């Protein structure tokens, strides 16, 4: 019964979750993206459209900011003053950062977005009432709202195009919020396969659609708990700690030799995506 439950496990319920003293148990999915390898070719983005049933909304809706690219490639210039962009551009793939302390989660009135046991920031479509508070509170603006009912909108999925829709992924109706899920449908399959074989998912066994497509392999994805996973090693090497809003390395003076950083870390969102700074040659 609830009240007895409440009283018996009070101390548990008062625990911050997750935290250094209470890390994730088996899985903590995380990503690292090497901006020096990202060429901005958009393959990841299109792969995401294919995998996650994202609608191509068309010019008119796109112009109103109704686009649905869960993974968008942002293009930055570093040459405000110079005549030419003569050190090229910088491309940055931005998707839901699956924050450990996600601002979107606490504000959802109906609890449609929650933290899962393996560290994902889940979005429950059929619970969502569309208050859009989560997006308002997302510093990365990585959440996308179904402004229209795309399945019934002309030329979004005209027959026979709807046959391409991935049956593993819900086709969202109007009025719900959606965002990158780290291809949770793939993770689920991998996890259940592993479970049936009585082991845990090993590194490289499951790939996100964007990672799988990326021609330069700029995106790596895996389980942060597993010390053998590439991602864990990268985070370790770059001295980026998950539950920190300031990294110790930034204090030491040669910390700038490391490329790893997380975007808007200072907002204490604890993102699960680490980026590696882009490099530029000085000799030319």
């Amino acid at each position: 019964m609830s009240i007895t439950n409440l009283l018996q496990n009070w101390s548990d319920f008062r625990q911050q979750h997750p935290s250094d003293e209470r890390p994730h148990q088996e899985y903590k999915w995380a990503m690292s993206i090497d901006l020096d390898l990202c060429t901005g070719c958009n393959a990841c983005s299109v792969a995401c459209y294919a995998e996650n049933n994202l609608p191509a909304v068309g010019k008119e809706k796109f112009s109103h900011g109704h686009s649905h690219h869960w993974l968008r490639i942002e293009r930055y210039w570093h040459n405000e003053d110079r005549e030419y962009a003569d050190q090229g551009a910088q491309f940055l793939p931005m998707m839901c950062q699956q924050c450990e302390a996600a601002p979107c989660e606490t504000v959802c009135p109906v609890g449609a977005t929650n933290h899962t046991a393996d560290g994902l920031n889940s979005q429950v479509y059929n619970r969502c009432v569309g208050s859009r508070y989560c997006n308002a509170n997302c510093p990365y603006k990585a959440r996308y709202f179904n402004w229209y009912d795309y399945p019934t909108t002309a030329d979004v999925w005209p027959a026979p195009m709807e046959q391409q829709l991935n049956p593993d992924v819900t086709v969202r109706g109007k009025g719900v919020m959606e965002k990158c899920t780290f291809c949770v449908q793939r993770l689920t399959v991998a996890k259940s396969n592993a479970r049936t074989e009585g082991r845990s998912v090993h590194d490289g066994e499951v790939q996100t659609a964007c990672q799988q497509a990326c021609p330069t392999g700029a995106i790596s994805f895996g389980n942060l708990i597993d010390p053998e996973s590439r991602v864990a090693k990268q985070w370790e090497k770059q001295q980026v700690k998950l539950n920190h809003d300031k990294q110790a390395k930034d204090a030491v003076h040669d910390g700038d030799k490391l490329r790893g950083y997380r975007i808007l870390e200072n907002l204490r969102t604890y993102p699960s995506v680490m980026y590696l700074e882009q490099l530029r040659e000085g000799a030319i």
Partner: protein
Amino acid sequence: MIENSFNRRDFLKVLGWGGATVALSGCGNTSVEDGREYVTSYVETADYIIPSIGTYFNSTCAQCDAGCGIMGRVREGRVLKLEGNPDSPINSGKMCGLGQAGVQAHYNPDRVREPLLRNGDKGEAITWEKALQLVSEKVASANPGSVAFLTGGVSGHVKVLLKNYLDAIGSDQHYVYEAVAPSVVRAANKKAYGVEMPRLRLDRAKVVVSFGADFLGTWVSPVHFSRQYAKFRKGVNGERGVLVQVESKMTITGANADRWLAIRPGTEGILALGLVNALSAAGLTVPAEVAAAVKDYTLDRVSNDTGVSVEHIGKLTALLKDRSPSLVIAGGAAEGYAHGSQNAAAVALLNQVLGNVGKTVEAPASMPFPQMAPITGNRSSLQALNDSIAQDGVKVLFNCGANPIYSAPASMNMKESLKKVPFKVAFAHYMDETAMEADLVLPLNSSMEGWGTVVPEYFAEGAQLNIQQPLMEKLHPGTLGMGDVLLALLKQRRPAEYSGYEDYYAYLKNAMVAIKGALGGENEDDDVFWDSVLSQGVVKLTSSSNALVSSASAAGLQLPPPAVEDGTYPLRLIPAVTPNMRDGRHANEPWLQESPDPLTTIVWDSWVEMHPKTAAKLGVVEGDIVEVASKNGAIKGQVYVYSGIHPDVISVPLGYGHEAMGRYSKGVGANAFKILDPVFDQQTGELAMYETRVKVTKAGKRVIVVKDEGPAGGNQSGRRIALRMASGKVNLAEEV
């Protein structure tokens, strides 16, 4: 991956059932209802089909000619998504956006669904029997020599059949046309190295200087080069490769360069020779003959002509000298001029002087079966066809995989000259501009429905033969594979030879099994061999490769001085080949329209790129609608201003502005092909794409440019979002 041992036919039956389930759910697949397929229920299905579990089948991506191996995820008889085939040396499991969009070509609602015969100005549906009958009559009635085929790049068994058919009717008119292809560079390479396209080893180079070769986006085999680029950036023992891009309009490769050098259009060759000169001055051993040839290309003169600063030329020289091996690539920007061959040759010369030949420029594997080797398309062939038509040497024209009416410059007046051809047959996927003009339209299978073999234009490692196999049952019963059609046509001509084959599948299997020895299956049972081939999707061929010419020679190199400005047409038009649109054949795939152009982030429209200076001179700002007028026509477009382009040029992307094709492409943007000036490369006769002179005038309105980029543009206004640091600081070797 699937097991080798299963019966292909069962598979198709099951897919038939998959199709049927789809059909019953009203998705327009009628193949079962009209008894073309018979149904096998899932109760007695083959054991590799498990409802709700995706099965992967290997095939080959047909979105461009790179020939990446793909792996189609099939569920309940429907192909859902394409992944890269890890066993394919070209893309080793990776894919580009264009390839990903292949499923949308397959499921596209605007596909042609049954043969159409022109009746007045509309087509009426006819049966294939009737269609083929008609074709054989027309061909029979025509003089054998006057039957012509216009195709895109072809290879594999289709090419063989095509060849055989042409022989059968005794015609030699086969024109292979590609609107955007590095034909000039190929020719120049042939001269310089003895091969059209050497194998480029970015992964081994420490410095890559690319003269406008967009190898990360659109050039030759982008995914493969991207794979190499990754290795190149990681470097051998942590020495990060340095990329320098020389071009007048930034490509996505340029956007990733450590140094992007905006060069005055057409002077790429001058810079190359200037570098040779500077290198020899810096003490690099250069053949006397070459040194003599380039001695006039002094630092100042080169800097003056090209607009590249002395400082940068100096640094570049030092870089090339110190960090060896390097790799110099000539691409679109170099070849797109009347003296394109010269530019390319100069670049090749630079490579040879640097001693890269044999190190980063390797001999490509040769195809052991020349009859299947790809014919690479070019633009001059279209010119040839045009001439042949003009002397009315063409009575029956088969058109397949080419859309000349859309992609030929207005000056060629393709539409009119095609009217001179009495009977035009178009093998079409969409009702594109050329199909609209055809007398008979024959709908083709999508690359996910048909059988075939593909030989990539560019071998990543050894020679290879790619398999193309159906990933699902036909969507539209009225379509046929190119192979099947050719086979049918051949049966009309050489029944003795071909009537034995029930369909192209039978022919293909037979043909493959016949050469199984060469394909590494000599002591395997036919079916086992065939199944393994199908499951692998890629057959690696044992091949030799002959050495390259590495002796540098400047013989016959003379480069014109930088072009003088034309008063009435002050600007140069660079028709940009973008990763999404390429030559526009995939414009009807919404994913590609919606995925923002990497540099401008513009969607669903074309645009006119210009440098802030140019914009200021013209008094226009972003969003202004301007008219871009050349001697051969004018197009309108929205202005996009940014500093990734030389002030002397403006750029309009290709691939937009279709007048037909489908709901997603028709009327979207403007077609830059149309206004290209008829200027040709002197040596190869290729259309010089970058030679068009234009004037830009305001056309009144101003619109809000629909793009992903916000009002902040590429500016982070102080937030720490996209960070960049000097490569000197990090030790990549230590990184994971």
